[in-house]
């Protein structure tokens, strides 16, 4: 069956350098640096990544950061709360734009 998303393709992520090596190398170096233990712990970064994965709705990232969060000792409740953060920001981002709608309504109403 042909699908746009194939779980096996996640393993091929590293191959993006086949078409453009120097940029891929820079990206993966940067990526590795970002997820290192830093001012935020690797565990905190993993939960942020999990939340962002849901916000950008990337199935590869959702798989990858579900496993990564579990490896880093997060439990189901923490992971679901991270997704709620993404959902709240997405929902909030829509709703806060309603102020623009409200402004416009007021502007053109008697």
């Amino acid at each position, binding site marked *: 069956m042909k699908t746009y998303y194939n779980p096996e393709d996640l393993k091929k992520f590293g191959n993006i350098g086949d078409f453009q090596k120097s940029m891929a190398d820079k990206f993966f170096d940067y990526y590795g640096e970002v997820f290192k*233990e830093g001012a935020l712990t*690797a*565990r905190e970064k993993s939960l942020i990544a999990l939340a962002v994965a849901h916000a950008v709705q990337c199935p590869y990232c959702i798989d990858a950061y579900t496993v990564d969060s579990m490896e880093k000792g997060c439990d189901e409740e923490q992971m679901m709360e991270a997704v709620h953060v993404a959902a709240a920001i997405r929902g909030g981002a829509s709703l806060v734009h309603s102020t623009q709608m409200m402004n416009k309504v007021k502007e053109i109403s008697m």
Partner: protein
Amino acid sequence: MKSLKAQNHPLSSSKYEIELLESTDFGGTFESKLEESGLFPLKPTQIEILQINMGKMCNQVCKHCHVDAGPDRKEIMEREVMNHCLKVIRENKIRTVDLTGGAPEMNPHFRWFVSEIRAIDSEINIIVRCNLTIILANPKYHDLPEFYKENKIEVVSSLPYFNAAKTDAQRGDGVFEKSIKALRMLNEIGYGIPGTGLVLNLVYNPSGAFLPGSQEGLEAEFKKKLSNQYAVEFNSLFTITNIPISRFLEYLQRSGNYEAYMEKLISSYNPSAASNVMCRSTVSVGWDGYLYDCDFNQMLELKVNSPGSQHIKDWKQNALKEREIVVNQHCFGCTAGAGSSCGGATA
């Protein structure tokens, strides 16, 4: 729950396990990886640790147990084999004796054996791998913490997570609550408390088909959670990867995770973890006295490759030091990521 052996499960046969592990090609054998790292044949560096499996009898039946231990297992070490172990410890200046099982405390000769090891030398590091719940299992075990203290035992105990749901899913209903009680009993007499010299280490292993994350990060999280929520203290956390044999292999197969897990282990092969695998400094003794490179090889019945010195009664230090370690596909569990051993991460 019964052991695989009591269920007559095909995976209770080590021959079947090995055939299964060897039959699937996941992109490279362990031998070929060691060769690439310049480590084949794998040889010991020195024999520092004698790990003694006192039997397969246990009060628990954990889902991931590589020993396939449980109350229905009757294989336990006799005093005669223990006497041979004592002779080896005495004559070869073994510095660390690591007692495991099953629940080693269920062996009727356990206390005698520990006291005899302690009598050899007050400086030998004696480790007991205590599953915690045994302390509460029967009034005759309630004084185990005192006994450990008197004999200056290092206690190493499994706690796969700092909540009941995950711990009980792996180790059985009610295990978390009992483990916390037992940990408090150990804390009360000084175990895990800085300055007492009484060492209480915990073992974390993932409750599922994934690898352990950074030992440092998990230790920090465990310390915070156990101290704040349960008033439990401990010294260090050892992260251990689940080795794909016995009941964990059965879980992997049943849950459809076997192939992906093996691929993950193999793709995470780390040469520096390979050069630090615990079999390079350990000899493992089975309940019946046979010798193995590690507790995992013991369960797969892969005896040490040192002819004439395969049983504790025939111990020849030099032959054992020169032996080639027997490796197979399960060894990828020791070399993935930050590596894994009975003392935690290795790389």
